[in-house]
């Protein structure tokens, strides 16, 4: 009788142990899958942040084109862009609130190629995300519009 009781208890304990192992394995798999999803979400969020920074930069009054006080969408004034880097360095704290840790470059594609660094502030980063938006570049000297892109690399 004692033996039967002991065997029966041993069976119960074994079943419970195997069940716990199965549950533990499935939870490990679940949390690993969750971690990959969280990493993907962080990458997506970084990419969205770099798109936000690019949109903020293109709408900045210190950079955008305006004619008779009317702002033009998706247009960067070249003369303003050439001076913006020194302005951003002088007023670093103000622009940090807008652009955080990022590298913003204006690159002209047509008719001639050209590149101007607008803002750069870096840190030790885990993720880097790059995005670009197309812009018109207005050259007031020749009263012409060129075609370019605003490249934003954001670091986190």
């Amino acid at each position, binding site marked *: 009788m004692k033996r039967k009781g002991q065997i029966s208890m041993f069976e119960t304990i074994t079943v419970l142990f195997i*069940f716990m192992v199965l549950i533990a394995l499935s939870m490990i798999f679940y949390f690993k899958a969750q971690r990959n999803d969280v990493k993907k979400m962080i990458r*997506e969020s970084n990419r969205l942040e770099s798109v936000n920074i690019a949109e903020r930069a293109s709408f900045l009054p210190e950079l955008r084109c305006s004619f008779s006080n009317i702002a033009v969408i998706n247009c960067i004034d070249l003369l303003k862009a050439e001076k913006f880097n020194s302005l951003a360095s002088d007023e670093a704290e103000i622009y940090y609130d807008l652009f955080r840790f990022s590298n913003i470059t204006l690159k002209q594609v*047509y008719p001639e190629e050209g590149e101007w660094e607008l803002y750069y502030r870096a840190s030790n980063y885990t993720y880097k995300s790059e995005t670009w938006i*197309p812009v018109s570049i207005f050259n007031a000297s020749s009263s*012409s519009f*060129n*075609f370019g892109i605003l490249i934003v690399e954001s670091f986190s």
Partner: protein
Amino acid sequence: MYLLRLNKKKGQMEAMGLAIIVLLISVGFLFALKFNMGTTHKSVRKGYLSSEMSSNILSAMLKTTIGKCRNYSLTQLYRFSASGQGGMKCSDDPDSANVSETAYNATFIMLNSTLTASGRVFVLNATSSVLGDESFLSIQTGSCRTRKSAIYPIPLNPGTAVVQLYLCGD
């Protein structure tokens, strides 16, 4: 007495078995929920970004001044091509390119340097009501199964030209 104890044990074992089954079903349900809930959100955002991108590219590109063609904007060159005046020369030099060729080359350079360089396939198609909705400019860099597009209408006098840019692949 012994039989009573045995029945109790059976009842306990059955209850434990039911509890285990309920737990396993809950864990399976959790997995199913997790894998089903992630996708829609991402595809809406990607689609939105593509149509914003194509709209912004068209808007910026068509504003561009073409210096080698009498400083006309690209919109103007499209207007000439859409009205059947694409054969007009870009300068007084008889060997100079005509308006249609210049518009095509400028468009190709701008889109190739941006979209193709970043691995995007695109289709650009410009049609004109004056030419019976025929295409007067068309560029395609690859096959296009799924696509987001932007439309840019150009008023003619009379009629309308429509420039459509498709970004492929999302």
